[in-house]
């Protein structure tokens, strides 16, 4: 038995000791907890932890197999994302008790706050007293037992699982309904209560999903892409695409969904140019040896940075949106090219972890496939707030991609049109986010970077918050970012272009007196070393490529990712289609593409007269269009357009 006195130790020190004791199989007594946050976070051993008093936020959060007991009350996020084990609280629990539970038994002898069991997927959450509003909000599975009153809107937007109520049901949530509770279930529940020495002899009622909103009601007719329209002239206003859109919407009665990003022309990297004429530069064949491309990102708060061979990452894309094969090809290519891969929303696969040298693990609002074990084997964590393709919306995965396998890794029912929540259960504002980051750092012993993924909107404000909240870096995604599925209008019209995003981000840091302190990894329509060099010049520390890497690996840009029948086996979960994808050949292609990009970066750096890619600056750039000039603040020099117009014929 180890005794830890929080009057003498910081939580960070305490958690290290708790984990050490756990590893040694020793039980732990926590004295003077004094409602401190994160007690026991990150513990994955089969030991007892007794908190003698009250605990703050995220008590027993991000843990597995341990047994927690708290004598008094706990703050919000009790047993956050607990994979297994038990957490017993003798007093009351704050909001989102048992959030994202994945298999633990969580018992609160008093009352629970609002949104108890939000996005939980398995296990039991037992509340002996009353629940506040929206218990079981967006739950995917498992069981919530409320022996007192249910609270308002119980089961709001639940997808799976059961809510058992022993007291009064105050009001039913959207898409939740009373269903029968048979004797066998009743016996099982009573047995469970007995196991935790809870006596109950009233009547139990069962609430489950009403099944009305799991799928879109009308299927969208499938059409192949017609060419994009250029934004000029009167004739284009009622163009073919507009008419197609009206016809389809007048058949389905809702917004349309598709894959990829914006389809119309926007101010972009092609609208800025290098001041120096790079067309005739003689590139040293050994340019790769001469130019420093190495990039370290993520040690702002003292963790182990990501050491990249060049300022490029693979952008976050989920297993789910993409096939396992495509994800593995990306992982292999990232390793071969010495850069990082990112899990995206869908959880981490063992094979992916093995293939990638540097793997960033992304945490989304639905906590799909989120696990303490994967956090602890990741090279960095990333909290997703939004993405460029659909800022303001959660991830979207259409039913034909939510297969049994995908459902299993994500912890959700199969065959639903998955619309991940747009808001984290425990991040309603900047202050919550600080505590959430802290929880992640506690869970991983402050060893790895924690970043934030932001779709570009009010960048000027958001970056300031991200900087002050203490992230190690920001993954900033412009309007041109792509996705596997999103509403067409959101893809086209929500968010600001990538050029504007980096400009506002860099300025924002200057405005709060922290110029350059928060590294920015820019993404959203970056295709080549030319785009990457321009992004770096504008102030990015690195870039990420998503769509381009997929194209290198065989994607044909048909924009039909959401259909789930990807013709080349990338954006599909259908085994018949996935088998069309040749993992090793495409991994080589993606690697080859990354190496070509590397050469371009080096050649440009050399051409501009530098020995380090990070020395490229705004001074090397000019704007070719009034829009690009206004957005970036670069000098408007349209003459450079003429200079660079026929580069190709000159070269050949």
């Amino acid at each position: 038995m180890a005794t830890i006195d929080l009057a003498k130790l910081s939580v960070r020190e305490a958690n290290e000791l708790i984990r050490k004791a756990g590893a040694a199989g020793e039980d732990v007594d926590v004295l003077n907890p004094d409602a401190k946050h994160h007690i026991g976070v990150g513990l994955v051993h089969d030991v007892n932890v007794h908190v003698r008093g009250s605990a703050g936020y995220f008590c027993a959060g991000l843990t597995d197999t341990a047994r927690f007991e708290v004598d008094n009350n706990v703050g919000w996020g009790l047993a956050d994302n607990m994979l297994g084990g038990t957490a017993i609280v003798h007093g009351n629990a704050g909001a989102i008790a048992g959030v994202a539970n994945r298999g633990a038994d969580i018992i609160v002898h008093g009352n629970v706050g609002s949104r108890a069991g939000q996005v939980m997927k398995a296990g039991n959450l037992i509340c002996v007293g009353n629940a506040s509003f929206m218990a079981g909000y967006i739950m995917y599975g498992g069981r919530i037992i409320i022996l007192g009153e249910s609270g308002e809107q119980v089961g709001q937007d639940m997808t799976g699982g059961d809510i058992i109520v022993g007291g009064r049901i105050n009001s039913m949530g959207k898409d939740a309904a009373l269903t029968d509770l048979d004797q066998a279930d009743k016996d099982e529940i009573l047995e469970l209560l007995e196991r935790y020495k809870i006596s109950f002899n009233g009547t139990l009622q069962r609430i489950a999903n009403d099944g009305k909103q799991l799928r879109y009601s009308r299927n969208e007719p499938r059409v192949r892409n017609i060419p994009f329209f250029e934004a000029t002239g009167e004739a284009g206003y009622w163009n073919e695409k507009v008419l197609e859109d009206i016809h389809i919407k007048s058949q389905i009665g809702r917004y349309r969904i598709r894959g990829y990003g914006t389809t119309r022309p926007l101010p972009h990297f092609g609208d800025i140019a290098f001041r120096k004429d790079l067309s005739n530069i003689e590139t040293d064949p050994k340019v790769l040896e001469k130019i420093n491309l190495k990039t370290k990102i993520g040690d702002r708060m003292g963790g182990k940075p990501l050491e990249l061979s060049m300022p490029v990452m693979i952008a976050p894309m989920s297993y789910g949106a993409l096939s396992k094969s495509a994800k593995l090809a990306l992982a292999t290519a990232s390793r071969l090219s010495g850069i990082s891969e990112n899990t995206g929303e869908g959880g981490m696969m063992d094979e992916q972890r093995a293939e990638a040298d540097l793997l960033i693990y992304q945490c989304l609002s639905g906590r799909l496939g989120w696990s303490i074990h994967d956090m602890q084997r990741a090279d960095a964590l990333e909290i997703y707030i939004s993405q460029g393709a659909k800022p303001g919306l959660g991830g979207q995965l259409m039913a034909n991609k939510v297969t049994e396998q995908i459902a299993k890794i994500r912890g959700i029912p199969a065959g639903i049109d998955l619309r991940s929540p747009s808001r984290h259960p425990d991040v309603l504002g900047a202050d919550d986010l600080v505590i959430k980051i802290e929880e992640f750092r506690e869970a991983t012993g402050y060893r790895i970077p924690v970043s934030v993924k932001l779709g570009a909107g009010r960048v000027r404000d958001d970056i300031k918050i991200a900087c002050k909240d203490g992230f190690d870096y920001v993954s900033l995604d412009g309007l041109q970012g792509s996705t596997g599925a999103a509403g067409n209008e959101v893809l086209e019209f929500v968010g600001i272009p990538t050029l504007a995003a980096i400009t506002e981000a860099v300025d924002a840091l200057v405005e709060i007196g922290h110029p350059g302190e928060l590294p920015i990894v820019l993404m959203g329509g970056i295709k080549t070393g030319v785009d990457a060099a321009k992004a770096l010049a504008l102030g990015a520390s690195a870039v990420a490529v998503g769509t381009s890497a997929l194209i290198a690996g065989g994607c044909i840009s048909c924009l039909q990712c959401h259909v789930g029948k990807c013709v080349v086996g990338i954006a599909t979960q259908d085994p018949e289609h996935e088998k069309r994808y040749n993992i090793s050949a495409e991994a080589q292609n993606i690697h080859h593409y990354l190496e070509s990009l590397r050469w371009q970066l080096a050649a440009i750096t050399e051409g501009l007269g530098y020995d380090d890619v990070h020395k490229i600056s705004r001074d090397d750039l000019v704007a070719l269009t009034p829009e690009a000039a206004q957005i970036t603040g670069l000098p408007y020099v349209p003459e450079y357009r003429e200079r660079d117009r026929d580069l190709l014929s000159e070269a050949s």
Partner: protein
Amino acid sequence: MNVYDISRIAPCDAPSEFADDTSDIHFVPAPCQVACPIGTDAPSYIAYTWEGKMEEAFEAITATNPFSSICGRVCDAPCEPACRRADSDGPIAIRNIKRFVMDKLGQDYKPTAIEVTRKETVGIVGGGPAGLTAAKDLAEAGFEVHVYEMMDRLGGMMVWGIPTFRLPDGIIDEDLNRLTDRCPGIKVHLSCTLGKDITLDELKGKHDVVLLSIGAWGGKTMTALDVDDARVVNGVDFLRDINSGKRPDMPETVLVIGGGDVAMDACRAAKRLPGCKDVKVVYRRGPEEIPARREELEGAVKEDIEFIYNVQPVAVEDGANGFGLTCVKTELGDPDEDGRRRPIDVAGSEHFVAGGLVIVAVGQQTECESLEKAGMMDWDRVRTDWDSMRTDDPRVFAAGDGAFGGSTIVMAMQHGHRAAYYMKALLNGIDNPLPYRTPYRTRRVPVAQDAEWEVINRQHQEFKGLGDKPVEFPEIEVSYDGEAARNEAARCYRCDAETGSADYTVHSREDIFVMARADLSDMKTQKAILNKRLQSHDDPFQENHLPTLDDLIFLPANLSRLVIDPYRDPCNVKAKIAGRIDLTSPLVAAGFDAAPQEIREALGAGLAEHGSAYIGTKQLPSSVPWLQLAEVGKDPVSEKADGVLFIQTGGFKEFDVPALSDDQIIGLSVSKDDLSRAIPFALDNEFDVLLLNACPGNGDWPELVGNPDLSVIRDALRLLRAMNREEDIEILYFGGVRSGTDLAKIIGLGANGAALGASLGFALGGSKEGNTMTFSGDSSQSERAEAVALLMKSLSSEASIMARCTGKTDVHNIEPEDLRSITRITSEATGIQMPGKNALL
């Protein structure tokens, strides 16, 4: 062949007379087209086939290919292995689609004849694919062309090398007839052999230029098998006999040496001849290396022909074991100079393979005694310079197998085009013509709109094999029927076509493809890619770019505002007009006064279903609330109207407001130029509503002219704000609202709601003709009404998604601050700032 090299990034300039589209920024030749030696626009004919446009498909096929009917059956089809779908579930069966089209149209097509217009004449020796292709090009350029053919019919190896079970006689005639019909200037001299019936000097005397396309008619021999025995024959000779109609008796077992197309044809022909039971093909490398076209090989296997791999014959044997070959086993060593791994004999592996006839099919060579004597041969070929197609004699050109070794029909045609190009240059007195390259055209056919394109697997032609009477050589496969052809055509990726994304355009995509596939040490290609990506493009927002709602974007809530979940959190979209008319969403309909009665009926029903209202001069045949559009001083105010919006033609003038009943809404329809006078008037008279008309034109469908003038809403709001009366009158907007996003933007700019006109017209089955709309189609009235209701529901859902993305729970709370403009011109027209450097702090 690598179709992902520098030629994809930076194709060299095409001669100006070429029909070539590589400078089109919305076109990159597809891998299949690049792999085709004559640049056939396969994507276009495939797409035409799907559309059922057979004549157009036929044109695309035959544009550069005079032997399209033949190629539909026996082309080597290098396009298919290059097809990008080959990496997925199998390449598009491009050749079969060609066959389908040519079966439909190849026989009866009568081309327009081209007359001779030039005085110079051309002599061509050899009427095979190379010679005849050149003949056609030259004849089409107006020259008289004389073709000297040693056999008694045209066609060369196409006739004498390919058995009729693969290529029936009629098919060859289709192409030849089409060619001679097209080019009466081609004069054919059959049974006329160079060096026997006519000499090169005579030809040079008769013609201004001469082309030697004499083919490679001699079968190569193997020293080990070079015996004088009738039981050892050459593959080329064997096929020539067969194709002249002979059907010789075969021994029970026939051995074929070799793994190329001649070997395949020989073994399959032997199998069909009387007496033959077994055919064995002996090939010195393995099944991976065998050069025969995959389909031919599979056909032979299906016909029970045995393949003996990794075996090399070393001697003919006729002893105790009977007649046959002594062979050794081989294994593969290091790559040869041609890149293929060299077979090495395995010591002590000698064994006997019995067979009553040995057919040697190990390659072809050119034989021409007279050219040999003239010193114009280089070993087994006519000495020819590839860059000019000339022989040692500046007026004598050469092409095809005879000049460059045995190859395919389609390669021979490329040689023909190429030679004709340089011959024309000489005849036209051009000294240094641009180097020839294959031209790449596109016919810009839309992508096939087939919903199953990702799913359909490769369609196979029905395989008949030997047939009931093998000796009659019935055709081995049956052409596609219409459905199979269409299904196969639907599978095409359309690598040539512009994508749906202005960011990942066809050029961007192909550049990335090349980055992923070009050799990293190939600095020329790498530099070309870099240069291409450094190259500037046109400003996407040029001077003719007009202010548009498309340029406005929404700012999402992230960290600085509470995120509202657009999938779940409620958002109000309901609206009211002047507190009296309830609307399900801030949408009404307007402008169907001139529409047909049944359209007006359906519209009325749809509006009622959605819970909307109508603005127009005439009431709809429906109970939906009606805001009468009444021309001042002309239209009497209707008692039936729920409200009256006054309108004046020819500009605003103050007027006496007619008396309305107490519960009628009163409003004014205004255009931009009238705002400064109309707004104070409307406010003074306590009007409820301003209908801002942003339509760019007049007439029944004023929205269809083009972009709405967004500055009307900017100016109206500025005037109201200056008077501090923004809340005193409601604003409805009319003009070019196409989506819920447009609606949300209009609300963000300051309107309370929008009127839909043309959008609903399209939903009702209207089509735009010029600046007006016509209605047709056979939809029922209830379907039309449903379309109206569903479109309004869609728009309402989109608008509420936009509101929630910006962090709002009510559509009406969208503000200018939630918007940004991506162009200066729209920023100016709407007063919405741009993002980035100059965004307000």
